[in-house]
């Protein structure tokens, strides 16, 4: 599968247009054969407030006799033309119909909220920051408020860390994180000063991949630069990036470089194919996680493909940079759909990447094939537990050197039903002690804890996890999420591993 070793990294850092505009590499075909271009869902991204005419919208409006009819429902036009309409066809309640120009119809979600406040009690930010009004306000309440045109999005939306625990807490399946993402996107798009330090800082944090791709060209220099005394303090002064954090080291060889050097896949198997979505961190910072994924999957007889890919969008969603996220999503969906067409399921080793592809993508974007990507995406350990007899494979195995781990389940794993899988998987492996350090949030939530003004809150949220880690037997941390790992390391000084690394060691892959 050599064509999946094709690497776009070569063109990566040379385009100053990466962050703005279309970052499609020159010479790359606009679309890959086999991926349909047009369809019902080829709409402008549905999150973005209508900042321009949708194709044909003007003429539609002019021709629509109901267009200037007074709205009866908070400005929301009836999808079916109101009571004049004879057929009430439920299919007519399509979100793109209700809000011309492409807004999300979150009414069902808002109506499902019965105000039990479970979301607020599950919110790690509200627990330390009384200025944050909580997910119930940010979601259904704010959604109702802004039905009237003259209401701005409350600035407090930027304090939501997008941990998405409220989704898991809501007994009524209100799409809270979708509402937050939409409100945050609107806030950033319409209300945030684009020249403000905060905007620039958030844009930088969101586009970690862009900077990591440059730093990776000169990893040693970049690593040294972040350790220059005062460098991080300067970052705090100039940009508002938390100066107390240690910048993660860049690998001297990225995962993709390693993949290319090893000649791509070592196993060919048209019946068992997976497309690996490594995300940014396993590529630039912890390629050992990506290598473990490849070796473990090859051990189980899978042909691993590594399609071209960009950021999953997780940090962009958290900062309301939805246009950036959309651009990256287009590349990801295009390449992943192609891999799916070749029989692969999509595997991510980062639980935030997998959650983004599965949940946020179809919730926020209409891109052709995005539903297919969502339905075919799994987290790495989850997929093996479903499709392989992992229990049988691990029964009777023993780790050469006994090791105890303090395991933290990332919030984003929780939403996918994965918060216990590492503990359960390694329960039967001899010599491994896997202790769950509890259900608290690590506090870093991707970029949240990197912000100067949020740093202390982030450490306060994390305090419970740090305590439980110290109490746990193990002196090595374990988690699926790279930023949780940063926080665990930052708070305790422990080395932190990914479950795939332990699995690699256990099965001797």
């Amino acid at each position: 599968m050599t064509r999946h070793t094709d690497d776009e990294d070569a063109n990566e850092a040379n385009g100053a247009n990466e962050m703005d505009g279309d970052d499609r590499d020159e010479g790359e075909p606009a679309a890959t054969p086999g991926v349909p271009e047009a369809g019902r869902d080829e709409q402008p991204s549905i999150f973005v407030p209508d900042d321009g005419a949708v194709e044909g919208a003007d003429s539609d409006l002019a021709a629509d006799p109901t267009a200037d009819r007074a709205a009866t429902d908070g400005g929301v036009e009836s999808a079916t033309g109101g009571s004049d309409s004879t057929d009430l066809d439920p299919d007519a309640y399509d979100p793109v119909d209700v809000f011309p120009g492409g807004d999300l119809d979150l009414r069902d979600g808002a109506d499902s909220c019965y105000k039990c406040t479970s979301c607020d009690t599950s919110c790690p930010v509200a627990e330390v920051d009384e200025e944050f009004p909580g997910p119930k306000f940010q979601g259904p309440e704010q959604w109702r408020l802004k039905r009237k045109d003259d209401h701005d999005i409350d600035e407090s939306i930027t304090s939501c860390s997008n941990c998405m625990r409220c989704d898991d807490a809501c007994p009524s399946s209100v799409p809270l994180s979708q509402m937050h993402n939409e409100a945050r996107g609107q806030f950033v798009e319409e209300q945030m000063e684009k020249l403000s330090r905060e905007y620039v800082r958030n844009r930088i944090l969101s586009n970690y991949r862009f900077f990591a791709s440059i730093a990776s060209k000169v990893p040693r220099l970049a690593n040294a630069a972040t350790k220059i005394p005062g460098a991080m303090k300067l970052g705090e002064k100039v940009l508002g990036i938390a100066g107390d954090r240690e910048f993660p080291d860049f690998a001297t060889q990225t995962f993709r470089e390693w993949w290319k050097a090893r000649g791509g896949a070592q196993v060919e198997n048209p019946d068992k194919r997976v497309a690996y979505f490594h995300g940014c961190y396993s590529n630039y910072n912890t390629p050992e996680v990506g290598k473990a994924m490849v070796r473990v999957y090859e051990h189980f007889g899978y042909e691993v493909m590594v399609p071209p890919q960009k950021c999953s969008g997780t940090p962009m969603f958290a900062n309301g940079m939805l246009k950036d996220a959309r651009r990256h999503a287009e590349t990801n969906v295009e390449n992943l759909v192609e891999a799916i067409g070749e029989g692969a399921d999509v595997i991510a080793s980062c639980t935030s990447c997998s959650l983004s592809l599965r949940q946020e993508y179809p919730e926020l974007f209409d891109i052709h094939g995005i539903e297919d990507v969502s339905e075919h995406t799994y987290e790495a350990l989850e997929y093996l537990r479903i499709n392989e007899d992992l229990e049988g494979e691990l029964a009777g195995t023993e780790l050469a050197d006994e090791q105890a781990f303090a395991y933290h389940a990332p919030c984003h794993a929780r939403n996918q039903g994965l918060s216990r899988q590492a503990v359960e998987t390694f329960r039967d492996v001899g010599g491994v002690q896997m202790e769950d350090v509890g259900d608290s949030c690590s506090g870093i939530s991707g970029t949240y804890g990197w912000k100067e003004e949020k740093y202390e809150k982030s450490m306060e949220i994390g305090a419970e996890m740090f305590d439980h880690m110290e109490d746990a037997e193990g002196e090595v941390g374990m988690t699926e999420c790279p930023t949780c790992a940063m926080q665990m390391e930052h708070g305790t000084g422990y080395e932190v591993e990914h479950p795939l690394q332990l699995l690699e060691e256990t099965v001797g892959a």
Partner: protein
Amino acid sequence: MAIDSDVLVVGGGMAAITAAIAAAREGADVRLVSHKASTLRQASGLIDALGYVPATEPAKPLREGPPTAGRELDRDEWPDPEGPLADPFEAVDRLPESHPYRTVGADALREGLDLFDDLAGDAYRGSHTDNNALLPTFGGSVKPTARYPAAAEAGLASDDRPALIVGFRSLTEYDARAFAGRLEAAGVPFDVAGAEVEFAEAFRADTKVTRIAKALDHDEAIDGVPAREALAKAVAPHLHDAVDEAGGVERVERVGFPAFLGDDRGDAVRAELADRLGADVFEIPMGPPSLPGLRLEDRLYDALDDEGVRFETGNPVVGVETEADGAVETVAVDRKGRETPYGADAFVLATGGLVGKGLDSDREGVSEPVFGLHVEQPADRYEWFVDDAFGDQPYARFGVRIGEDGRALDADGDAAYENVFAAGGIVGGADAAREKSASGVSLATGIVAGRQAATEATK
């Protein structure tokens, strides 16, 4: 390939946890799958068994014609329920024959409570007696309950020591003076005063109770004073607010707070406040968001872990995938759009009732969405309810019927499947809200369903 276990429990509340642990203790390999984080976080944290026996016949015959959905037309009149009951066990026989307590028996309730006592340890009180305790609750009423958090112990309504109830202006849903007034009106045997103090004002209005609990847990500085000390200082001037029958001032011996006195370190917070105030300190159980519920959830999920039960939340079980010879083989779990089969030798359905969303309803009828089990109901939607809001509402008793071994039954009263059991709110026949029996029904049916499922799975 299916994800397999001996017993699969569907649900995450009290009944599901009870069934899972009961099955695990019988030696079964158990997995629990819950769609969302446990609804225990919405629970008061009180463990009710049976507080009242509500009337099932109106005082005067139901009027002719369909109910009128609350319009003021010739309302039906219902006698007050019998209670509060001193002894929940002796009243079981007076419940309707279709009540789950009648089906599984009072002994199941006793065993369920024993299991709970074992799991709750010293965090709960009330196991020393069969009798109900009377506890003041958030609304100012007094509630009969079988087990209660140690944090609420000093608040018992049967205690005759004078009490102060503390409230905060910023906690809008809770008025301490009205609360104290209601307790007095209820005829409690102690003098009580309510006082609103300045403490939570340091936080902005609508601050979450979890925020205040955390501040007390960590004794964070509030305007320069450690939180626990600040709270004690705010309360201290009111320690002589209670007035005795003769009009004399007396110093209160116990002080009640809304239940936000810490989360992880509640014991330490209460002890320090008691020390500073020279009075016992207790928490008044609240509706959601409920810290006693959250604490109970934490404790019971730790117990699941200790018992070796595997559990996951985040994805719903959406239906039966394969069945053979009258038994379910696998159910489908919706993992973000992709259905994955979960196999087991026996299944326990514990998804809750109408509020817990274990039952689904629309204008056509009420259904159980996971196994498609039979839910008995009048064909005419207007017979689902009666006019009197506090009457014997038929919908309150909707649910799946079970046999004495906890097996879910079909319309003919036979086992719907050989290996499907049901427990908790999904089981019909109880009017838990009026009876104050929700936890007890979950414990009694949970322990029966869990044990029988384990027997079925390991036979």
